[in-house]
């Protein structure tokens, strides 16, 4: 009995507590990211943004959440019911599950696995299923076109993200996210890999279907794309998943290029702040860029989007991987197994 308790039950309780500690703040962060988005874009367009519910409109996300919760879930008659309901659940689930390997600070990670970066890549490549399933199951032209566009777009940009990851992990010499952060103690990877960081950021925008690559939900032509037919909580799950994915992309950018929880300089005023605060500051910085881009750029045309992914990013990132390997070999810094 004692063996069962020590071996399985107690670790299980600890893991569940950790999951709650990650998912709870994450959902609050998602809620306030929507608020931040409306405020930031409002400020950029010289509007006020939400300012009615609560002081400075701070309770607006809660009001939106309650509204969506109380609405009726409508399932279209011609829809494939099981897949229709499964799609938003899958999107939401995948957006949360990826956070298992994110190191928030030194040793603050739920699962410190050896192939952390591959796990993140695998989970983010699955994100397309929620959208393509939703598009098909809705039995609607707009949703289907949105789903197909999204599938093409996400598969294309994943390829260049893959090569970006290869360049980073060649330099770090490990697939473990904590070790990748530790490898940036002398210099953040954004400095030697600046072009890769730009490619990663733009591909991240495309991967999360954010403006200027939000063709899957282009409201001027597809009404709302893959989520036209969704209402109430099913829609909310898509929405939460999408924003959680944005935060995840920003976290990946912070870990791979901006040194994760490390302070910019390891000297007095900077290393007073705990690592997790630096990590959150970096995520917030990258997220602000996401919002800024949305307020600034018009939407891409689909053929231009494909051209950028396949004819610009892919050859360049491939070239950069070869260059990185060559430079590391010449300097004798290639990771030795």
């Amino acid at each position, binding site marked *: 009995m004692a063996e069962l308790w020590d071996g*399985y039950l107690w670790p299980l309780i600890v893991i569940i507590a950790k999951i709650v500690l990650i998912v709870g703040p994450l959902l609050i962060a998602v809620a306030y990211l929507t608020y931040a988005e409306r405020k930031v874009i409002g400020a950029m367009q010289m509007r006020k943004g939400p300012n009615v519910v609560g002081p400075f409109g701070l309770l607006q996300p809660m009001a939106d959440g309650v509204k969506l919760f109380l609405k009726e879930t409508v399932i279209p008659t011609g829809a*494939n019911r099981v*897949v229709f309901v499964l799609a938003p659940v899958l999107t939401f689930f995948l957006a949360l599950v990826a956070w298992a390997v994110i190191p928030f600070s030194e040793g603050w990670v739920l699962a410190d*696995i*050896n*192939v952390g970066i*591959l*796990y993140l*890549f*695998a989970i983010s*490549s*699955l994100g*397309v*299923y929620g959208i*393509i*399933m939703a598009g*098909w199951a809705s039995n609607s032209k707009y949703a*289907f076109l949105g789903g*197909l566009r999204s*599938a*093409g777009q996400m*598969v294309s940009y*994943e390829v260049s993200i893959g090569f970006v990851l290869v360049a980073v992990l060649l330099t770090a010499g490990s*697939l473990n996210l904590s070790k990748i952060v530790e490898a940036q103690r002398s210099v953040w990877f954004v400095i030697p890999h600046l072009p890769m960081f730009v490619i990663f950021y733009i591909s991240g925008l495309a991967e999360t279907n954010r403006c200027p690559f939000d063709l899957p939900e282009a409201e001027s032509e597809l009404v709302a794309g893959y989520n036209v037919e969704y209402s109430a909580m099913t829609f909310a799950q898509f929405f939460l998943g999408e924003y959680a994915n944005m935060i995840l992309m920003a976290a990946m950018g912070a870990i791979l290029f901006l040194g994760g929880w490390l302070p910019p300089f390891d000297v007095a005023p900077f290393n007073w702040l705990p690592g997790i605060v630096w990590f959150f500051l970096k995520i917030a910085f990258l997220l602000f860029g996401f919002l800024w881009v949305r307020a600034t750029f018009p939407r891409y045309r689909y*053929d*231009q989007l494909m*051209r950028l992914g396949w004819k610009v990013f892919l050859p360049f990132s491939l070239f950069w991987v070869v260059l990185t390997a060559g430079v590391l070999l010449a300097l004798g810094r290639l990771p030795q*197994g």
Partner: protein
Amino acid sequence: MIVQALMFYVFAAVAVAGAVMVISARNPVHSVLYLILVFFNAAGLFLLLGAEFLAMMLVIVYVGAVAVLFLFVVMMLDINTLRLREGFLQYLPTGAVVGLILLVELAMAGGGWVFASDVEELRAVPVLSEISNTEALGRVMYTDYLYPFQTAGVVLLVAMVGSIMLTLRRRPDARRQNIAAQLARHKKDTLEIKKVPSGGGI
């Protein structure tokens, strides 16, 4: 260990049940979705074996790329399941014969299988306890098996180029965007500013 054993049976059972559903589901899209479920459980089995690199690669390559394209194509096909079932009895004898032959061949190949006596020495297995299995795979793949690995890559490349060549249609009438030409335009070549006196016209 009991949890591992339990997980093995869960993954294995779901994988087998999913595989049965792949061939018995009426809707082809459902078939592909069940296939994805099977891939997932296979990845789970790899994880239980301690082969986490293979598990992740299975998810990235098969689930993240191959199955997406499957789903993409199957969704766009307008398959009438009723018409597909019409010829079922007609094709049954041929299918049964082919299946039977394959089964017998497999049984013969499997039954006559004997491990070579020196197979243990031939296995290029690095000691797993010292290094992670990602490293172990890399060491073997890029040293002992470099040429087979590269050949596999070249075969894939040839297949890719071949399929592109087969489906490529040259369309001289298509209007393509020439970005360099667009960027090379100057204001003074294309734009002329005129002072228009009011009521005078140009």
